[in-house]
Every structure is written in structure tokens, then in C-alpha cells.
């Protein structure tokens, strides 16, 4: 939007710009990227500073103070700005601590699945042939499994906990990474700079890590943001179904599950964590969208 309105600005810029300044400018010009980044940064700060920001102990029960409504209700009070739950725990504090769980699971799952998927995809794309056949077989097997069902079954076998959920989702969500890494690597395999590196006798790990990986990183980062959002939603789903993060941990999905008995009379018990989930996932998707625009071929050269 902004770059359409300011063609003069583009003319005044020096001819040679560093990539940092170009990156900064295109980030600010890209509205969805800026909004997504802003929300995620603030939620990240909230997660990091949770002990100082939360007004109450998120685990402290107070049965005398059950189901206090939030501030916008007539009976609400500033002691509990978002009210309390059925055990009298401060809802705002639980929400703040819940940010930690969501962000932790989202990021760690994306890292684990990114590592698995990228490794498989790059190897399949680079070597082709039998390696590709094996990876493709693994990939179709994985795609044939319904994620929620398998995760639920496994979690009920092992026993749900934050660690189980993180590992399970990490081992299940690598498919998109593998698909993207594989096709991007296939395109690069015959690039002349890869051929030149091979002709030089570069070791395989050098070619894959230094010649191939940096050039497919843009696409992988976009996938990573989408997988973070996906993992956060799946964690909430599993926690809601009772197979994810266990009480009394303040997971957003668990908060929704615990509140579902009250949803017709005190709907805020569900809408508050639900909205938090919505905002976080939306922000991550906006970020991913913005990154995709940024890494698109046209985006780099203005």
C-alpha cells in the first residue's frame, strides 16, 4: 500500500542499499508482516515476563471467590480484571502463564519437525532415486495418518503431559517441511553453483548446508510459521480433549475444556482463552503471509 503512494521516495534512495535497510523498509511496507510481528513480539514479552506481569498466582485456589465475572460485567472488580475460574484462580494470571505454554509448544514443535522434515526433504531432493523413494514412502505414510487421532491414541498410551505433546507433535508435523524442502532442493540440485561446488570437490555436508540450505531457507521459514500456528492449535485441541497438558497447568485449551460446563451462563470462561488463541494464531499466520511476500522473487528487488 505505502509503496504505491510514495514513488518519489523510491527514487531518492541511494542506488546501492544494504540488505538490512531493504529488509527493514519492506517489513514496514508490508502491513500484515508488521502487525503479526508486533502482536507476536508483545505476546513473547508477556510470556517472558509472566511472573512480574501476572497479578496473582495462577495456581492459587480461592473457593470463596469462584466464577467472579470479568471487569466489563456490573459485578466485576479490578482485583480480578478477567474474573476467576471455577476454583477461584485468577483468570488473567492463568491466561498470561498460558502464553508460555502455547509459545513454547509452538516453537519447539516447529523446531523438531523442521529438523526432521528439512533433513528428509533435502536428502530426497538432492539425491533423488532410491533415497527419494524411501522419503516419499515415509511421507505418504505420514500423510495417511490423521494427526489428531494418532496424537490422541499415543498420548493416551504414554500419558499426556507437555513433554509428550511436544514430542508427539514434533514427530507428526514434519510433512510440510519435507515436501517444501524436497521440491526446493530438486530445483537447486542442478543449479550451476551447486555443480561448481561439486566440481571443486566440496564435501557433501558443505554443499547441503552452505550451498543448498541458505537458498531454501526462505520457503522453510514460511512453513515454520504456519507449523507454529498449527502446533499451538493442536496442543489446545489435545488439552481440550484431556490428552494434552494436564491440570493444573494453565494451558489455553485446558482452560476452554474446564469452562465448557459453564459456557451457556458464563460464556467469558470460554471466550477469553478462545480469543487469546485466535489472536495468537492470527498473528502467526499474518507473519507467515508477510514472510512469504517478502521471500517471493519479486519482493527482493523492490
Amino acid at each position, binding site marked *: 500500500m505505502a509503496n504505491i503512494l510514495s514513488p518519489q521516495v523510491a527514487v531518492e534512495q541511494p542506488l546501492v542499499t544494504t540488505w538490512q535497510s531493504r529488509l527493514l523498509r519492506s517489513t514496514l511496507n508490508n502491513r500484515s508482516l508488521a502487525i503479526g510481528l508486533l502482536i507476536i513480539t508483545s505476546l513473547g514479552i508477556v510470556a517472558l515476563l509472566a511472573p512480574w506481569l501476572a497479578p496473582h498466582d495462577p495456581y492459587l485456589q480461592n473457593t470463596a471467590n469462584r466464577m467472579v465475572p470479568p471487569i466489563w460485567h456490573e459485578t466485576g472488580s479490578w482485583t480480578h480484571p478477567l474474573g476467576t475460574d471455577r476454583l477461584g484462580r485468577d483468570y488473567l494470571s492463568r491466561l498470561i502463564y498460558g502464553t508460555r505454554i502455547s509459545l513454547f509448544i509452538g516453537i519447539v514443535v516447529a523446531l523438531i519437525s523442521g529438523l526432521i522434515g528439512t533433513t528428509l526433504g533435502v536428502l530426497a531432493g538432492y539425491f533423488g532415486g532410491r533415497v527419494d523413494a524411501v522419503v516419499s514412502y515415509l511421507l505418504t505414510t505420514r500423510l495417511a495418518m490423521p494427526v489428531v487421532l494418532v496424537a490422541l491414541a499415543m498420548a493416551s498410551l504414554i500419558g499426556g503431559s507437555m513433554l509428550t505433546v511436544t514430542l508427539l507433535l514434533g514427530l507428526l508435523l514434519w510433512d510440510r517441511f519435507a515436501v517444501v524442502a524436497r521440491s526446493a532442493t530438486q530445483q537447486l540440485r542442478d543449479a550451476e*553453483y551447486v*555443480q561448481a561446488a561439486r566440481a571443486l570437490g566440496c564435501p557433501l555436508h*558443505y554443499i547441503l548446508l552452505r550451498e543448498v540450505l541458505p537458498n531454501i531457507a526462505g520457503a522453510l521459514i514460511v512453513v515454520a510459521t504456519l507449523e507454529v500456528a498449527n502446533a499451538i492449535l493442536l496442543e489446545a485441541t489435545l488439552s481440550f480433549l484431556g490428552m494434552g497438558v494436564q491440570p493444573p497447568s494453565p494451558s489455553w485449551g485446558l482452560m476452554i475444556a474446564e469452562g465448557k460446563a459453564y459456557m451457556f451462563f458464563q460464556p467469558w470462561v470460554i471466550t477469553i482463552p478462545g480469543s487469546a488463541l485466535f489472536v495468537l494464531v492470527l498473528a502467526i499466520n499474518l507473519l507467515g503471509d508477510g514472510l512469504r511476500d517478502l521471500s517471493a522473487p519479486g519482493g527482493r528487488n523492490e
Partner: protein
Amino acid sequence: MSSAAIPRDPLALELCALSKTFTLGGGMLHKSRSLQAVKDVSLRVPHGQVMGLVGESGCGKSTLAKMLLGLTKPSGGDVLINGKAIVNANQKALARHIQPIFQDPYSSLNPRQRIAQIVGLPLRIHAIGTAKEQAVKVEEMLDMVGLPKRAAQQYPGQMSGGQRQRVAIARALIMRPDLVICDEPTSALDVSVQAQILNLLLDLKDEFGLTYLFISHDLAVVEHLADRLAVMYLGRIVEEGTREQIFTAPRHPYTQALLASALTPEPGLGVPDIGLGAGQPDPSRPPSGCAFHPRCPMAQPECAQQAPALSALDQNNQGRVACHFA
């Protein structure tokens, strides 16, 4: 840097009956077919010479180059560099002697690396000198190919095609190889830049005593550069000789047609009609006998039966031609 201490074989490069067959398709429902990209190619290139290799697209020139660089394994035959066979040779040892300059300077440089990294890569991989010495060498090399000092800190995306090709040349020459495979190094460049790059290649050849295998489909470029010329058609060499021989008295009808097809700068003449009829046949279903006979203006029934051998024209091995009637 090069093998100055060891007595050198008079030939920088020798190809003995080199062949490459690719297998195509071969799924559950299809029968696999074989494509002979390079057939029985023998070629000798003495030190310090420029051997031009010309032919249509798809005639096997680039496959040949890849085999020489060790990127593709030959199906048969031998490649000797300085008299030593390279089949099963260590890629690193091979890289010291032979380096490529590729066609497209837009895809031959990693867009995520600075020029200094790209040009210094051979030194780093082969662990030649300390980091400081490597930086000095990179600077010298950039200077030799006519790039300013500040180019070292730039990314390929900030350079023009001609500048990028200079970077590719610097990367190929920084380890002082004996032999450089130039795979159409100018065909992706503007005409005005082509001449600069060609002259640079000639200057560097004299300076470092290089041998070039110069692959091209542009006859004007080859005429400017090559000492000897080999003409390829459907994977085979059909004629080989000195530049004068090929340009003044071509013997093979395909060479004659190729020379006739060169465009002149004269306006109004249009595209010359070379009388070759339809396009090149499918390389996976080559014609019987002489592969050129379906397009040959002087083909006889005999040509469809028997493939002509590449035979010497005289005792001094000044030229070879593969035609029954040449």
C-alpha cells in the same frame, strides 16, 4: 601451483572412446529406453591450446563437459588429464587440474554468498594458505579479472552479467588449474560484453598457460578463440581439425551446413536456408548407419547401412572426418 615439478604429459587432455548412456523412464508400465548422449568420442588437446567444441543443442556437448569435470560417470572409455586417468580419481585431486566456467552467470554464483566467499571457496575447501593469505589471493584474482576491490564485499545480485562472469572466471582460476572447461561462457551475455569476456579469457590463458576446452554453438566466438575445432553431431564427433581447415575447407556435410547457417551482420539477407530439412532427430532413437543421413544433402543408400568411422585425412593427423564421401 600446477604440476610444474613433475614432467608433464604433452597432452593436457585426452579422451579415449568416451561414451555416456542414460537410461530414460523405466517405470512400472514403461519399458526403459537408453539414450546415448556421447558415443565413442576420442579427442586430444595439447597443453596451451584452445579446443573448440561445436554442435547443436542436445548433441552431447554439456554431457561431455560434465564427464570431464567428474560430475557424471562415463559409461565407457577413458579421460586422461596430463596423462592420468580420472575415472575413480579423487574429486579434490581432479579439481586442482580442471575447473569449469559455466554458461549462465546468473545461476553459477550462490546468491547468498559474498563475492569474496565465492572466489575464495576453492582455497578454503583445499585448505590452501591461512585465512589472510586466502584474502590476499582473492583480491589479486579479482584484480586480474578486472573487478574493483569493493566487489569482494558485494553479493552476486548487485552485479551485472559481465561482472558475474568475471567472478566465475576468478573462481575457476584461483587454484591455477591446467585445464578450463568453458561451457558456452558468453552465450548468456550481451554482445558488447561477450568480446570483453573473450579477450579476458585469452589474456588469462597466456598469463597462466591454460588449456581451454571451449564449448559453444556460436561459430563467430569459436573462430575468434580456438586453435582446433571438433564438430559434434548426436553424440559423435563428425569432424575435427585446425581452425583454418574447418573454416576454409570443411569436409563433412554437417560442418558445411553449420558454417552456412552462421548469420552475417549484413541486414536484409534474412536467415540463410541451409537445406537441412527437418530438425535434429530424437537422440533416443538415432537413425541407422550415419546418424546424419536423414538430413544430409548428399546421402546415398550406403549411408543408412553403415556408420562411417572418424578417419584421419592424412598421415600428420591434421584433421579427421567421419563421412563416406569426404
